[in-house]
């Protein structure tokens, strides 16, 4: 079982990202369950979504408290939310940020860091900071757990409110291409 927690803000598409990722994993023959956290639904408020992936049927529908991987699709969120709560030693962080790796706050025992200037890419493509599809590309690049092809296929089944499929496809590709992957503590990787 591999557990992922996605952090974002209302309107950036964190919940939709979890559903697209679940679709991509299922298309590759795995079992996946995506569980959105629920709070007050408004733009800009911190939101999160949980995703479990396994080779066999998944029964638990609870939130995730010990993630293997955290995907943070908003660069300002770590200032107000403890995005690392419960993250396992040897875990992975996929962070949307235009800063250099040295400036990214992270636990000492983090093994893998994927960095992507998702807001910069989003502003260029969508004209606003909608980062979900970009950060899914970043996740695929940094972890190799899902193929870009499966993710692109899953995009096609999704319904986007704020942008077209073609834009999102380009965004995902750029997220994949423009993610810097750092191996920090390879000895901790399980």
């Amino acid at each position: 079982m591999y557990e992922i927690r996605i952090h974002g803000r209302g309107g950036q598409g964190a919940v939709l990202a979890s559903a697209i990722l679940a679709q991509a994993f299922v298309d590759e023959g795995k079992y996946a369950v995506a569980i959105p956290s629920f709070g007050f639904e408004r733009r800009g408020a911190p939101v999160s979504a949980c995703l479990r992936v396994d080779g066999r049927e998944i029964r638990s529908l609870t939130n995730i408290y010990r993630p293997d991987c955290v995907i943070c699709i908003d660069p300002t969120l770590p200032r107000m939310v403890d995005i690392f709560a419960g993250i396992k030693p040897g875990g992975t962080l996929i962070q949307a940020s235009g800063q250099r790796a040295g400036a990214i706050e992270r636990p000492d025992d983090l093994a893998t860091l994927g960095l992507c200037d998702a807001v910069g890419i989003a502003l260029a493509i969508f004209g606003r900071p909608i980062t979900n599809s970009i950060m899914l590309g970043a996740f695929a690049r940094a972890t190799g757990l899902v193929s870009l092809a499966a993710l692109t296929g899953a995009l096609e089944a999704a319904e986007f409110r704020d942008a077209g499929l073609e834009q999102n496809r380009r965004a995902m590709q750029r997220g994949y291409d423009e993610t810097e992957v750092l191996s920090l503590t390879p000895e901790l990787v399980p």
Partner: protein
Amino acid sequence: MNNMARIAVCDGNEAAAWGVKLSRPDVVAVYPITPQSSLVEYLSKFIADGTLDAELMNVEGEHSVLSALQGACLAGARTYTATSGPGLAFMFEPYVRTPGLRLPMVASLVNRDMLSPQCVWGGQQDVMTVRDAGWIHMFCESAQEVLDTVIMAYRIAEHPEVMLPVNINHDGNYLSYAVSRVEIPDQPGVDAFLGPKNVNWHAALDPDRPMAVDPLTGGADADGAARFVAYRQSLCRGMQTALEVITDVHADWARAFGRNWAPLVEEYRLDDADIALVTIGSMSGAAKDAVDAAREAGIAVGVIRIKTFRPFPVAALARAAAKVRALGVVDRAVSYGWNCGPVCQEVRGALYGSPSPIPVLSFIGGLAGADLTEAHFSRVIADTAAALTAPPAALPVWLNAREEGTPR
């Protein structure tokens, strides 16, 4: 899976909508309410796209939803609706009338906790307030079970010896919005499973055959009283018969589609267990995971999951409980004035008179959207195991309560 099934990745609300679509209802009446809204949005989309040939009635509230469907069902239509929490409360008057009219409706309850305090999240207080309204109640653990059970519900409701409305319960938030892999059966397979539509043969409205529906019945005179009693007895018989029908329909489903859901109570790792958790609804997956972990640690524990809650499966529950020496019942609702949750109350009632009484502990959690985690179930397992050697506490354990000593 049957040959033509396809794999979808969808949430429980969409799974329910697929179950409805495949069952080919004639009339769907809706009023949106959290966390049910997306379910009826999926149905409206099917109807707008022309892939579901049904009349969609957008009415002004839940009272009208069910009143409109009563007329449709009396006219012989297969019907569907869904609601949650306060929507169910607003539906109450036609809701209690439906079983007495013997209208074989199917409706989803996307379970939501009840007010007050104001709350829009999951909980089973809504369904527990109507447990004795005369509807059949089934509870699902997964989105797949939601889809399958919605279809099965039409066979159960429309069975000539049952003729009762069925509520399919699926937990708000945890099942309504959790996205997972779901097999969608093919239409010919479902058509064959449901057979020819024969919804309301007993009282279909017909201008050539006028009749009074729901005339004034009962009163103080012996004849009126006896007539009212006869209606009640007939409904009670329908409920009892439903136990067999539900079992048969689940067996048919397994033959047709290969998924073998327990019809009344599911037993999980129970045969060699000393104790068992009793669960209902979407909490059961985490409970099973906690049981697997406890087994690794040498605790012989299993799960009894209640699928059918009305009619209450007294005999099946007693048979399952007879395999263990203590039960820990987890409720997602409160029964005011009782020092236990409603499911616990019913389990204790079902075991009354048992030749070897066992402790039945009450745990209440998951209210108003609270998460019931593996850690909570580990606590339930530990407390229930302790009851094997020492008398258990008389009061329920509130699983999401603030720990004593923590700041308010």
